């Protein structure tokens, strides 16, 4: 029996070189979703009152961004141009529904606190923006790297903002008391003097402070990386 020669379609090898690394690291600095591309601000502001919520949100966005990019990229040749927005939105909405159901089952408290903002990942412009700008024109592998990088770039900013807001607003990090009023069991002990001197700044918990923190972050980022400065 003669062997049937299977003609493999010519494929570029999947490798992890300089270009691929750039896809992953670019969104962390030069092309950061929040401070440079200004995408996905809405949810970034609303969920950053505590680091725990921010972490849950960051993981959710990384997941959605990664898989939406891969799926769209795999389907990119069969999506008609006119209805591509709706197709992309349906892909994203499906993934977000998965995230919502998983959170509802395994992290009900976070689910309650994040409420509508889980659903708003659908309209989180980073996901959509990356699908339009990258996944529609590239292979699934590169798209996966791009999605991962952008998700992480977004998550890092989220955690930084949440750190400042939670630390100065409530004196806590991940819900653990660091500064502020001393806990009950320490009153009248030497340890209580470590706390006491700081009173939580309620403004930091409110929405406007998220704006201020991001404004200062943008300032710092652009001062450090002058090629990003807006010259218009």
């Amino acid at each position, binding site marked *: 029996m003669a062997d049937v020669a299977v003609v493999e379609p010519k494929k570029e090898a999947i490798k992890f070189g300089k270009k691929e690394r750039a896809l992953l690291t670019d969104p962390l600095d030069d092309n950061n979703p929040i401070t440079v591309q200004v995408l996905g601000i*809405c949810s970034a502001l*609303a969920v950053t009152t505590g680091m725990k919520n921010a972490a849950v949100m960051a993981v959710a966005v990384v997941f959605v961004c990664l898989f939406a990019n891969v799926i769209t990229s795999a389907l990119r040749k069969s999506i008609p141009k006119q209805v591509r927005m709706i197709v992309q939105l349906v892909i994203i909405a499906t993934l977000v529904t998965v995230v919502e159901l998983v959170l509802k089952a395994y992290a009900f408290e976070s689910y309650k606190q994040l409420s*509508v903002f889980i*659903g*708003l990942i*659908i*309209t989180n412009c980073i996901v959509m923006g990356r699908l339009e700008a990258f996944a529609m024109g590239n292979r699934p592998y590169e798209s996966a790297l791009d999605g991962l990088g952008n998700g992480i770039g977004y998550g890092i900013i989220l955690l930084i903002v949440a750190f400042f807001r939670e630390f100065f607003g409530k004196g806590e990090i991940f819900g653990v008391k660091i500064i502020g009023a001393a806990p009950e069991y320490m009153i009248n002990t030497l340890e209580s003097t470590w706390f006491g001197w700081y009173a939580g700044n309620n403004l930091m918990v409110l929405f406007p402070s998220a*704006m201020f923190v991001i*404004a200062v972050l943008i*300032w710092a980022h652009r001062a450090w990386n002058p090629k990003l400065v807006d010259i218009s």
Partner: protein
Amino acid sequence: MGDLVNIFIKSAFIENLALAYFLGMCSYLAVSKTVKTAFGLGLAVIFVLGITMPINWVINTWLLGENGVFQTDLTFLRFILFIAVIASMVQLVEMVVEKYSPSLYNSLGIFLPLITVNCAILGGSLFMVSKEYNFSEAVAFGLGGGFGWFLAIIAIAAIREKIKYSAVPPAMRGLGMAFLLTGMMGMAFMGLMGIDPAAFK
């Protein structure tokens, strides 16, 4: 009726979608460089919010609810259906406006597709669900929310036009300043929380 006015005022000023919940920030920051374009986008948002809110209410209650057509709880399909409604409504509105009012289409043109991914639209619908409004309340909430968003984007665009003439540190120019200003406007709007909506009854 008093209730509806109450909800309108509340959603436009006290619970302003842009300045109290920070929804729709992406287009809010991107399109607020001049008052003229901000005006167009604001109008389009009022329009689309006012249309999609009642439709989504009907879908949520009659299709997905337990007492709806299918007699089962289908709320897990909510996101997909809501976003499909919004995307197709935006497409429809775009086609209608293009056909009947080319001048309006030319001024709104590029902003209409942008609205699909404006979180204020989907967020409005999701808030409507979580607040358990009835049909007329949903309409009032949609219009009020849209109006509040419109006011907010016009206000920031006006400030940004003026601030061009100030000496802002280079790294803070443009985006950084827009963030700071929005934060301050948000603080100003927090002052409105003191209004007692019951006074409008």
